[in-house]
C-alpha cells in the first residue's frame, strides 16, 4: 500500500491537543448540591463496574485518537498497487439514433439505455475510467475518459435524443481509438440492435453489447421528396414511400397538407414488411410547407410525419423580340409563370426585372440586364459572327450546370447553327465536336447573357422535350435561385447552403446580421459563421423544418429576430430506423451480467472516513450524547 499524499501524516500531531484536552477534561466539574441523599440511592442501587469505571475515560481517548488517525490516514490517500494495475478503461457507446426514441421501453429505449449506463457508472471502481460516446446521427465523444461519477452521470443524462441514423459502428471505432489498445479495456454498447452489423460487433472480444427494447411493429414514411415538374413550371411532383416494418398488416391513411390546405388523402393497406410508394403530380404557384402524415399510432412518432418545402413561384416578365416564330412564342406562352410581350424590333432598353429574348435580332450592343440570345443573326459587342456551322453535333455538355438540368442535346438533330467567337469569357454549356459553342453563358457586370446558336427553324430541337426544359431552366437562371426547390434532407445529413444577406467579402459582410440555425419547434439555435456566403450545416438531428434566421436579441433568445431567410426540411427517411425490430443477433444476446466492479468501488480513504464516523458515533453515544441532549 502506498500513500498519494504522505505529507498529510503530519496532521497526526493533532493528537497532542486531544491528549491535553483529555487530561484537562478528567478534572471533573464540581457541582454543589443541597444534599446527596437522593443521589446516593441512585448510585448505590447500581454500582458501576470497577473495570469499566476505570477504563472508560481511557477508552474514550483511544477512540478519539483512532478517529484522528483514520482521518489522517484518509487524507494521505492510501491506495493499493493492484488498484492501478486492475483499473479498467471503459467506453460507453450510447445509441441515440431515431429508433432509440421508440416508446416500447418506458419511457423510451434511450432512457432505458441511460438507466443501464447509470448503473454502470455507479459500479465503477475508484481508478476506473469511462468515456461516453454518442452512437447516433454523428458519433462524437460526449465525455472524455473520467472517473468522476457526477460528471459522467451528467454527461449521460444530457445526451440528447436525436432523429438521426444509427452509426454505432463508427462510434465503436471512435471508442477503440479512445481505449488506445490498452489492456483491461472494453467498449460497452447500449443500443436497440436495430441496425446491420450488430453480429460483427457482438463477436468482437473488446465489445459488450446491451440490448434494450423489444420487437415492435412500426409504420413510417420512409421517403418524401418533392420536385418541380419537368413539364409544368407551376407543377410539382411528390415522391412518397410508406413502409410497414411490422409483422401484421396495417391499414392507415396518408394525408398531404400544403400549409393548412389538404392536398390529398391516400388510404393505405400495407402487408407485413410491405412498402407503398407513389408519385403524385400537383400544382401550386403560392408554395408553402408540404406536410405528410400517417394516422397510425405506433412506438415511433418521428417517421409518422414528413415535410417538404415548396417555394413560391414569382411571375417573370419576358420581352421576346422576334420575327413570328410559333415554337418560340408557344413555348413561352405555355409557361404560366411568364408574362410574355412579343415585339418585332429589338429594344434598346430592357425594363427592370425583365428578361429580354432576342431571336435573330441583334443590336450592336447587347442591352444591360438578362438577355437570352437565340440564333444570333449578327455580331455584337459580345461576339463575332463566323461562318454557319453545318450539322453541329453536341459532344460536350456541362451536366453540372443548372442550365442543363434534364437537358440532353447530344442526340438532337440541329442542321444549322452560328459560329460565334466571344470577345470575353463565356462558359460553354454545350459545344460541338468542332469545339464551337452551341449554348453558352456570359456573366456581365450589367447582366447575364445566354446565347443559343441553333437555328430553331431547322432541326427538331423545338420539337424535343429538351427545348421547353432548356427554356424553363434559362428563365429560372435569369430569375436567380429564388423559387428553386430545395430537397428535403434525411436526418444526419449535411448540406451546403448559400447564406442570404451574408456576402463573402466587402463592407456588407461586416454589416450583415448574424445568422443562426433554428431547430424545428424551437430550442437552442446554433450560430452560423459570419461573413460567409456559403456554409455547410448539419448534421441535422431532428425531423421537421429547420430555419436560418437572424439571431435574436440575446445569445439564447427563444425566437429569431426576423423572418426565416431560408428553410430546410428534414425527415427521418430511413427504413432502418423505422424498423424497430431488433436483429436476430440482438435478440440472441444473453442478458449481460452485472457490470459492477465488486464491493470496493470507492477509494480507500472513503471507507476510512466512513469508519472514522462510525467510531465518532460510537464514542458520542456513551460519552458525548448526554452533553448535547
Amino acid at each position, binding site marked *: 500500500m502506498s500513500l498519494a499524499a504522505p505529507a498529510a501524516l503530519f496532521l497526526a500531531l493533532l493528537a497532542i491537543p486531544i491528549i491535553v484536552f483529555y487530561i484537562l477534561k478528567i478534572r471533573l466539574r*464540581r*457541582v454543589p*448540591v443541597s*444534599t*446527596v441523599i437522593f*443521589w*446516593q440511592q441512585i448510585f448505590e442501587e447500581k454500582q458501576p463496574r470497577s473495570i469499566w469505571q476505570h477504563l472508560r475515560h481511557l477508552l474514550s481517548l483511544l477512540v478519539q485518537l483512532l478517529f484522528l488517525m483514520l482521518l489522517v490516514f484518509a487524507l494521505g490517500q492510501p491506495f493499493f498497487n493492484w488498484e492501478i494495475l486492475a483499473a479498467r478503461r471503459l467506453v460507453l457507446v450510447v445509441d441515440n439514433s431515431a429508433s432509440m426514441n421508440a416508446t416500447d421501453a418506458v419511457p423510451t429505449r434511450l432512457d432505458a439505455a441511460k438507466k443501464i449506463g447509470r448503473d454502470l457508472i455507479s459500479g465503477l471502481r475508484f481508478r476506473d475510467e469511462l468515456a461516453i460516446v454518442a452512437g447516433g446521427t454523428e458519433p462524437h465523444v460526449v465525455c472524455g475518459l473520467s472517473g468522476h461519477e457526477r460528471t459522467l452521470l451528467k454527461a449521460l443524462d444530457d445526451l440528447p435524443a436525436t432523429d438521426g441514423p444509427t452509426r454505432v459502428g463508427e462510434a465503436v471505432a471512435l471508442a477503440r481509438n479512445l481505449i488506445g489498445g490498452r489492456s483491461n479495456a472494453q467498449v460497452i454498447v447500449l443500443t436497440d440492435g436495430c441496425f446491420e452489423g450488430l453480429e460483427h460487433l457482438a463477436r468482437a472480444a473488446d465489445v459488450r453489447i446491451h440490448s434494450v427494447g423489444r420487437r415492435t411493429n412500426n409504420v413510417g414514411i420512409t421517403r418524401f421528396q418533392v420536385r418541380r415538374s419537368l413539364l409544368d413550371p407551376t407543377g410539382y411532383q411528390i415522391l412518397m414511400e410508406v413502409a410497414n416494418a411490422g409483422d401484421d398488416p396495417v391499414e392507415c391513411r396518408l394525408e398531404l397538407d400544403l400549409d393548412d390546405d389538404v392536398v390529398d388523402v391516400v388510404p393505405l393497406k400495407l402487408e407485413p414488411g410491405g412498402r407503398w410508394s407513389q408519385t403524385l403530380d400537383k400544382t401550386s404557384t403560392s408554395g408553402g410547407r408540404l406536410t405528410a402524415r400517417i394516422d397510425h399510432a405506433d412506438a415511433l412518432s418521428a417517421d409518422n410525419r414528413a415535410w417538404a418545402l415548396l417555394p413560391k413561384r414569382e411571375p417573370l416578365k419576358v420581352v421576346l423580340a422576334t420575327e413570328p416564330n410559333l415554337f418560340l412564342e408557344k413555348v413561352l406562352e405555355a409557361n404560366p409563370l411568364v408574362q410574355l410581350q412579343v415585339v418585332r424590333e429589338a429594344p434598346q432598353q430592357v425594363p427592370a426585372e425583365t428578361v429580354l429574348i432576342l431571336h435573330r435580332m441583334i443590336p450592336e450592343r447587347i442591352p444591360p440586364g438578362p438577355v437570352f440570345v437565340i440564333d444570333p443573326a449578327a455580331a455584337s459587342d459580345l461576339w463575332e459572327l463566323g461562318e454557319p456551322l453545318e450539322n453541329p453535333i453536341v459532344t460536350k455538355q456541362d451536366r453540372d450546370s443548372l442550365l442543363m438540368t434534364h437537358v440532353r442535346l447530344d442526340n438532337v438533330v440541329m442542321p444549322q447553327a452560328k459560329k460565334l467567337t466571344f470577345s470575353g469569357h463565356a462558359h460553354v454549356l454545350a459545344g460541338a465536336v468542332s469545339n464551337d459553342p452551341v449554348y453558352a453563358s456570359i456573366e456581365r457586370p450589367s447582366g447575364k447573357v445566354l446565347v443559343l446558336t441553333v437555328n430553331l427553324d431547322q432541326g427538331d430541337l423545338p420539337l424535343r422535350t429538351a427545348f421547353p426544359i432548356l427554356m424553363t431552366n434559362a428563365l429560372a437562371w435569369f430569375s436567380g435561385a429564388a423559387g428553386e426547390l430545395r430537397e428535403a434532407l434525411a436526418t444526419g445529413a449535411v448540406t451546403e447552403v448559400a447564406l442570404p444577406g451574408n456576402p463573402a467579402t466587402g463592407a456588407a459582410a461586416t454589416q450583415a446580421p448574424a445568422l443562426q440555425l433554428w431547430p424545428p419547434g424551437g430550442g437552442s439555435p446554433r450560430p452560423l459563421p459570419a461573413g460567409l456566403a456559403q456554409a455547410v450545416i448539419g448534421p441535422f438531428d431532428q425531423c421537421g423544418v429547420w430555419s436560418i434566421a437572424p439571431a435574436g436579441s440575446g445569445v439564447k433568445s427563444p425566437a429569431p429576430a426576423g423572418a426565416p431567410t431560408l428553410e430546410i426540411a428534414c425527415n427521418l427517411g430511413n427504413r432502418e430506423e423505422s424498423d424497430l425490430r431488433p436483429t436476430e443477433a440482438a435478440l440472441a444476446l444473453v442478458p449481460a451480467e452485472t457490470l459492477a466492479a465488486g464491493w470496493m468501488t470507492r477509494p480507500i480513504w472513503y471507507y476510512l472516513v466512513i469508519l472514522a464516523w462510525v467510531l465518532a458515533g460510537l464514542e458520542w453515544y456513551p460519552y458525548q450524547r*448526554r452533553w448535547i441532549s
Partner: protein
Amino acid sequence: MALFDSEFLKQLEYLSLVSRRVFRGSLLAQKRTMQLGGGIEFADHREYTPGDDFRYLDWNLYARHEALMLKRFQEEEDLHVYFLLDCSRSMAFGSPSKFDLARQVTAALAYIALADLDRIAVVAFSSDIVADFPLTRGKARILSLLRFLENLPAQGTQTDLSRVVTGFVHRNQRRGLAIVVSDLFDPAGFDRGLDMLRHRRYEPHVVQLHDRTEADPKLLGDIELFDVETEAARKVTVTERNLRRYKKIFDEYQAAVRKYCRNYGVGCTQTSTEVPFDDLILKMMRTAGAVV
C-alpha cells in the same frame, strides 16, 4: 436588599388583617381545649362545694329551684406557637435560597400569631438547636424577632431533626403548635422527629421547602457532586436515566412527607422557593379557610 424591609412589614400587616384566627382555626387542625376558668363565655353548671367562690353561684337558679349551682365559664387561653426553623447549610441552597424563604415564612406566621395575642418562640436548628428566640407575646416584639431571624446564619453540618426535637420537647414549656420550617433533608428521616412531637402532644405542622434545581436538576455528564451540608464530594456520571431516577426518588420523598402528614393529621405545606412568601401564606390561609 435586606431580608426584612419596610415593604415586608407592610405585607405582614396586610396578612395579619386578612387572617382570621389562623392558629385557632382549622389550619392546624387545632381544637380548642375546654379549660374552664374565669372567662366571660358561659360553659355550664356544677354543684356547689364548700370553698367555692360565692361570686359564681347562680342565684337565679337558687331562687327558682333552691339548688346551689355554680356557674362555670370557658377560660380564654393564649396559644403557644413554636417555630422550629431549619438553618442547616442545605437551606442556604437555591436562588432565592430556601433559608430566606423559611425566615420570611416564619416571620409572617409569627407576626400573625402575635397579632392574635398568641405567644411565639423560634428554635433554630441544624444538627442540634443552635439558637433560640424565647417565648414572647405582643406585636411589639416582631422587630426583635425580625432582627433575630436576620442575624441567623445557615450553619451546621447535618440536619438531625430527631435530635433537635428531643432537646425541644424536654424543655419545660407548655404544649402548643410546633411549626417545622425545613427542607426535611434529614439522612435519618423526618418521621422520627415529627413522631416525637406528636407523642409529646404538640400539634406539629410541616412547611417543607425545596428549590427548583433540587426537583429538576440540570446535571449531565461526569461531575463531582459536592454536598454543601456535609461537604462530602462524590464523582459520578449523571446520565439521562440517572436524572429520571433522581426525579422519581425526589417525588417519592415529597409524596412520603405528604402521606405521613395525611395519616397523622399533621398540617403540611410543600412549596418551591419560586413562590413568594406572601403568596404562600395566603395559600395556606385559603387552604385553612382563614381568609376569604
